[in-house]
């Protein structure tokens, strides 16, 4: 594997890993290259991103993991993007957060973030300010985290009489954290049992 190729693969891996980032040992495993070599390369790569003026992203190291992030210089443009008169529609982030809450309520922010794999403060704020979700109590346990649920306004807005009118989720996505193989088996077993 030449350097260009390795660089290219690392970029795609970091991109796909998103907020969770990748540590040296993960990169070493996937690329099948020793950890020391990885550490050296990553140092070099980090510099490449910074010095290349045509790159808008950079590699940052956080808590032992490498992540891609936008360059700070471009903050103004991102701000402008956020502020630009949006097309009176909810963002993808807000919509998927809303869907998770609708189907899994009551649910904590941490749990939503587990499912989405990204921070979800802003979508929650947006949805709450639009009156589509609200606090529905507190979770048991140490943090007593806020539990979110949908509101009557939510039902109203989407023209639903009650939550049971939400379209059923496709069979294959019902169990978000499930192990697929057992799921399939479990499903046919379950069918067999309930058919009798």
């Amino acid at each position: 594997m030449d350097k260009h190729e390795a660089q290219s693969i690392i970029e795609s891996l970091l991109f796909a890993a998103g907020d969770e980032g990748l540590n040296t040992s993960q990169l070493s495993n996937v690329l099948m290259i020793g950890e020391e070599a990885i550490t050296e390369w990553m140092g070099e790569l980090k510099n490449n991103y910074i010095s290349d003026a045509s790159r808008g992203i950079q590699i940052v190291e956080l808590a032992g993991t490498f992540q891609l992030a936008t360059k700070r210089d471009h903050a103004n443009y991102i701000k402008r993007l956020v502020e630009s008169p949006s097309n009176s529609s909810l963002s993808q982030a807000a919509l998927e957060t809303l869907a998770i809450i609708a189907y899994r309520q009551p649910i904590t922010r941490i749990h939503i973030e587990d499912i989405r794999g990204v921070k979800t403060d802003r979508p929650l704020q947006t949805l709450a300010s639009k009156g589509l979700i609200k606090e529905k109590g507190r979770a048991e346990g140490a943090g007593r985290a806020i539990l979110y649920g949908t509101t009557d306004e939510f039902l109203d807005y989407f023209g639903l009489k009650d939550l049971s009118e939400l379209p059923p989720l496709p069979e294959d996505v019902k169990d978000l954290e499930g192990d697929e193989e057992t799921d399939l088996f479990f499903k046919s077993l379950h069918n067999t049992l309930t058919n009798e």
Partner: protein
Amino acid sequence: MIHMEYSVKVDAFEGPLDLLLHLIQGLEIDIYDIPMADITEQYMLYIRAMNVLELNVASEYLVMAATLLAIKSRMLLPKHEEEWNDDELDLTEEDPRDELVLRLIEYRKYKMAAVELKEKEELRGSVFTKAPLDLSEYETQKIDSTEGLDVSLYDMLGAFHKLLRRKKLQKPLSTRVTRQEISIDKRMKEIMMDLRKNLGQRKFQDLFPVAEKSHMVVSFLAVLELMKRNEIYVQQSKNFSDILVEAIEGVTMVGQA
């Protein structure tokens, strides 16, 4: 089990049109000149076979069978006596198969299109996108109502589907499987004990007392293993009746247990 296996395979047909296309291809006949006797015979053979296998033959298949028979008999009728308007005759004479052929050709187009969609689905699946960043730090103003909002339930479902398509990073193995597993051996012993306590016989579904995935899977594997070792006998008197599990050693074991 046999029943289950076949009912899965009959799903390979997407309906009577699909079955007919398969027959036409198998017989290597021209779709524009279908030999009705042959195709009807073949079609009826499969319908009968499905019956023999006790498959649930959907009504659409039976309707098509009737259609095929009707076309076949219309083709056997002697041609109309020449009527007074000779000129018109050739033009208006309809082939009884026309409508069926049109339907088959129309359906085939979409069946092919579905194949192309499947290819695109696979191609798209090898390209990975990422979640939008949380840009809350850049946000200044908010609109505090749903007024002017223009999203539908479908948008929400679409966004959710998109989320589910996103590839998730593998969690470290250590956090993955921590639950305590019960062994198949242990479960086999439990099942035999259970049978003895119940005069050697239990309903199949009663062998799954814990509604927890891993437990059900282990129980099922235990039942299979016991069947293999001839320690139990599983029977069903007719379709949809209870499946009974019997200990082969029978009640005689009760005293010893």
